[in-house]
Structure formats: C-alpha cells, structure tokens
C-alpha cells in the first residue's frame, strides 16, 4: 500500500492541489496530455514513447524532455431530490440536494529520454496517462447529522484519486519508410476513494457513514506502433496501447468503513478493467515554416464496466441486479460503470516564425464515455471541445522551451431522472446520481526539451 502521509507531504511540497478527472483531450479519465501539441502518434517528440513508439525513429541523438501539465478544473453538480431518496426526519436538511461546486488545480509532470543509435531508438519515460484527484467541497448544510457538510456529491465521492503511473521502456527501428516500435510498461495503479456510504446503499442521512478504499498494485502492459513515411514531408502513424494489467486488474489494499453502530478495517481487493487505446495520426510538413497534424484515438472504455471491492483474494460474482452472487458474501461494494467506447480527435498546426520561435495552434473534440445511467460525481465525463494556443522558443541550440494554454469547454449534462444506480441491489446500490453536471477546464502545459 501507499504510504499516505509521505505521499501527501510530497504532493503538497511541489505546490499542487487537486483536480477531479481529466483536464482535457481524452475521454473517461484518460489524462494523456504530456508533450502538449507534440503529444500525438506522429510527432517528433520523446513522448511518442506512449502515443506511438514507432514515431521515436523521428528523433536523433539524445533527447531529454520534461514537461508538466497544470490544470484548473471548475466543476458544479446540481442535484434535485429523487424518488428513491430516503426522506430525512422532519425539519432536517439532509444535504442531498442543492449544489456542490469546486475549482481546483492539478499538476502532472512527465519525463522522457531517448537515444538514437543508427536506425534504432531507445526510450524511457515516466508519465501518467490515466488519472485524476479530487477533493470535494464542504458546501453542504451543517446540521444535526455529521455527514451533510460534505454536500450532495458526497455519496459518490468526497475525496480520492485514481492514477496509473507508467514506467516505460521502448525500442523503435526504422526500415526505410517504415518504422516499428514497441514499449513495455510497468504500471503502478492506485485508487483511493472516500465516499458517504450506508451499508444498504441508500442516502439515509440518519444512518450515514463513510467508506475509505485505499488500494494499489503493479501491473504490466505494452504498446505497439507503426509509422509510414511515404514522402519526406508526410508521416502516417498508428499505435496500440494495451490495457493496464492486460485485463482485469486486482489492486490490493484495505477498506475502512464507519457505519452507524459499527466500523471495520479489512484487507480487500479492487477489481476493475481499464481500457486499451488505438491511435491513428498524420503529420504533414507543408513547408519549411508550416506543419500540421491530425490525430485520433479510440479508447475501449466499454471494458470499464464496474469497480468491484471484494474480500482479499475473492472474485466478483454479481447477479444481473447487482446483488452478490458469490454465495460467500465476498462482494463488499460495487460501483456499476458500464461505460462506452469513446473517441477523440485532435488537430493542430505549427508555424516557425523565426529560427527560434514556433507558434502553435490546436483544437480537439473528445467523446463522452459515461452513460447517463451511471454518471456520477466521482468520474464525470461529457463531450468537450478544446482550443489550444502556444509557442516553442529555442533558448539555445540544444534547449527548447514550450508553453501552451488550452481552454476546454464541456457540454453540460442533465441526468436528472436517468440514473439507475439506486435501482440496483446491494452491494451495487448507490444513491441516485442524477443531476446537472457543469464543468470547464483551463490547462497550461509547459515543457523543456534538450537535444544533446
């Protein structure tokens, strides 16, 4: 398990705070934004170790790259009462309706190194393609019951984190116009989830408790890629990134629960399956000054069907209605997800204004992976459009600095009356998560590249 106090201290020491979900430019909670406008499957940038390892053959010499994404997310959740809500005692504000609103920042650095030897390129990197953290507001009523203060979003997440940190090695090889590449990833996956919870899965404020899940695990995955350069000015690339863990993950740790009249602290496993990703891109060097790219990705979020907490070592056997079907009472808590596959498209252009200064523009459209039925405040998603502007400045012949700003506009979603979470049987039952979801994100990417 993670050593949380140390982690928290180190995290705060780098001056970052929190963000729920992705900042932009991917569906679900995919956060791959490292590389900025060079983060795509045909770029000449070390970050293609993730996006398409074959594109590493576009690099020469030794390249070191470090960059960071700093994002501010603005999120508001407006909830009305649902038919399945448990009515509070007369005169009590249960804090189950109203608005939870929060704005907070996030920082996600990434580092890469590449070494070209002849037609081969070796690469290494550490980065976070999936993840997000969240620390919800304390904007609920403060009354007779101790949980209401955490607001109407608390039944789906109060504070938490989901992250896959990739430690990756890659090799690419050029065969004339064709390049192939592969990467191997050691993935440190972890999930921390604090939510309001009753043992029967309702939002009965008179029995309100808390569950805290802290799990992590080491997983393997790989990436494969191809690039084809039919003309010196044109690069076509395609890649595949396998699922972290290559299938269903088993993250190990503990779950603590504090319920009315009792508490527990037990070893548990979280079972979940994260998606694999297909990417396709084209880069065209239109002139010595102008270049452009278009890239798309298809993320198979349909694999992310549930997040199931079971007794350590047990399996997650659920009936169609979400009830524990194990026969041994092994399933402790299950969050139905039932996400859908989603895609994203990005395009961008770069203009070399001078030998040292390059201006960059980009745009993106990201699909929505989360259906109305299971959309909740822990991992919200929506169709969004991003607009990017930035520059790269070559400070020294071997040193380039880059900075881009992206504003991401999410479509508002209103799922009032469409959530099915409260219709499940325990342990899959959760309070109705319907409501109006509004969010926007501002993303600043900064990077430094050394070409040795």
């Amino acid at each position, binding site marked *: 398990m993670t050593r949380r106090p140390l982690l928290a201290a180190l995290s705060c020491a780098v001056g970052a705070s929190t963000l729920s979900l992705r900042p932009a430019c991917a569906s679900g909670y995919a956060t791959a934004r490292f590389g900025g406008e060079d983060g795509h499957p045909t770029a000449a940038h070390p970050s293609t170790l993730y996006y398409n390892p074959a594109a590493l053959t576009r690099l020469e010499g030794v390249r070191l790259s470090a960059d960071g994404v700093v994002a501010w997310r603005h999120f508001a959740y407006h909830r009305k009462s649902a038919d399945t809500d448990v009515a509070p005692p007369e005169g009590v504000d249960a804090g189950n309706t109203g608005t939870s609103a929060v704005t907070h920042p996030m920082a996600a650095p990434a580092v890469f190194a590449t070494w070209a030897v002849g037609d081969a390129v070796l690469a290494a990197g550490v980065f976070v393609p999936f993840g997000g953290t969240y620390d919800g507001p304390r904007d609920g009523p403060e009354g007779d019951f*101790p949980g209401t203060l955490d607001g109407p979003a608390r039944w789906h997440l109060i504070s938490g984190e989901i992250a896959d940190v990739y430690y990756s090695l890659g090799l690419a090889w050029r065969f004339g116009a064709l390049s192939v590449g592969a990467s191997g990833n050691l993935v440190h996956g972890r999930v921390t989830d604090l939510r309001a919870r009753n043992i029967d899965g309702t939002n009965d404020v008179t029995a309100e408790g808390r569950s805290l899940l802290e799990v992590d695990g080491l997983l393997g995955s790989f990436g494969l890629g191809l690039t084809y350069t039919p003309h010196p000015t044109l690069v076509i690339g395609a890649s595949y990134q396998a699922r972290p863990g290559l299938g269903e993950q088993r993250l190990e740790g503990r779950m603590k629960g504090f319920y009315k009249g009792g508490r527990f602290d037990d070893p548990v496993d979280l079972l979940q399956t994260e998606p694999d990703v297909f990417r396709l891109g084209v880069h065209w060097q239109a002139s010595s000054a102008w270049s452009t790219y278009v890239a798309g990705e298809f993320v198979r979020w349909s694999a992310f069907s549930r997040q199931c907490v079971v007794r350590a070592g047990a399996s997650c056997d659920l009936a169609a209605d979400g009830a524990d079907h194990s026969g041994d009472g092994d399933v402790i808590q299950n969050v139905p997800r039932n996400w859908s596959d989603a895609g994203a498209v990005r395009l961008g252009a770069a203009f070399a204004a001078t030998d040292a200064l390059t201006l960059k523009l980009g745009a993106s459209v990201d699909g929505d992976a989360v259906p109305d039925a299971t959309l909740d405040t822990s991992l919200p998603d929506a169709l969004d459009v991003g607009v990017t502007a930035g520059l790269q400045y070559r400070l020294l012949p071997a040193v380039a600095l880059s900075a881009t700003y992206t504003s991401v506009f999410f479509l508002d979603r209103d799922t009032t009356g469409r959530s099915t979470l409260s219709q499940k049987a325990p342990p899959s039952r959760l309070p109705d998560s319907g409501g109006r979801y509004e969010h926007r994100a501002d993303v600043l990417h900064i990077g430094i590249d050394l070409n040795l």
Partner: protein
Amino acid sequence: MKERMATIAGLLLSACVDPAARYDTFVSRCVARETSACTPPIVYDPEICTRPEPAEVEGVFLFTISLAFAVEKPVLYRLETTAELVDDALLVTQRATPLDKTDGETPVGDAFEVTFPVAEDGTFTAELPETVTPAAANPITGGDVTTRLVLTGSMCSTRRPEAPEGGVDALCGTLTADISRPVRLSTTGTFTSQRHHPGTPWPSPILDCAELPPRPMSAETP
C-alpha cells in the same frame, strides 16, 4: 518498491488530497456529537422477575434482529423453542431458521441451534454460533452475511401465565453482532421474539423492547 513508486506517483500526479484525513474528520464529528446518528444509544434495562417454567417458554416464535446500521431492515427467523430443567437450571434450546426477506414467512437457508441458561431473575445471555444468513434473508445488503451474535435479554416483561396457552409471549433485549463476512464489523442492535399462536396470522415484526406493547400481542390477550 511500491512505496518508492507511490512517492513518484505523488510527484507525478500531484495533489494535496488526503481522503484519510477527511475520513478521520467525519469519525471525529460523529464521536463529538452526543446525539449523533453514528452512535445510536441502545438503552436496555432488563426487567427482573421469577424465572419462568420450561413449558412457559416453549413454542414457535418470530425472531427479529435489528442492527444499528439498518434499524428499519430487520432480519427475521422462525424460532422453535424447547426448554428443560437440568439440575434446577432452566436450559432453553432454540432452533432458528432464516426467513425470506420478501414475505417474512418462508424458510430459507440452514437452521442453527443454540442452548443457553436462564437466570433465576429471568435474564439470560445467549451466545449464538457463527451462522450464515443467506442472501435471501438479508434485506440490508442482499448478500450472504456471516455473523456471531450475543443476545442479552429477559423473559419477564411479557410473561403471561394467565393466558390460555400460558407462558411467555415475547422476549426482547439487546445484542452485539460480530460480522465476519463480507467485512469484519462489530455492531450492536436489538432483538425480539414474538410467539406465534397456532391458527393466528404470523406476527408482524417489532424491533425492540420499546416497541413492545405493554401487554402480550396475542388476540386472546385480555
């Protein structure tokens, strides 16, 4: 190694988020409130009486268990009770069969048996064996639950020797529950046992001593 990786992960996805601290804050808020929903008071002062005779406690009962975290969702059992005097000690044996959560009458799952002594003043402590309440009888989480219960109660308050059948019509008291599956959770609760009189409808469950009527519930009750 995972600790080092966690540190790196923290640097890579930086966040001052500390869910454990907020969990502890909630627990502190609960503990600090005397009228908190988190620690419901279960006050029970068992009535003292003269120990009943074996025949007075024998019969079929509806056994209702109400746990603190889901008071309104009791787990129900059919209870067949026999009793005998052994060396002047009253030993009560109860065979409990879980009942379907949807109708409260249909037996589901395996029965278990417990034997416990009743003190001279009518009070008793019954340590039940570890039992599995099947999903069909569990209205709280809907899954199998493994529990060990300890009941503390009295056979006094509704003793009704003048009734046509004679004997005890209802028991009640408090309990502690050590749940071992799906999670290990110790909690408290209340229980009642309501006699089923042949030829009458199966009783509607009541949750605790406070809700027991002052007189026996039987239709024949004067």
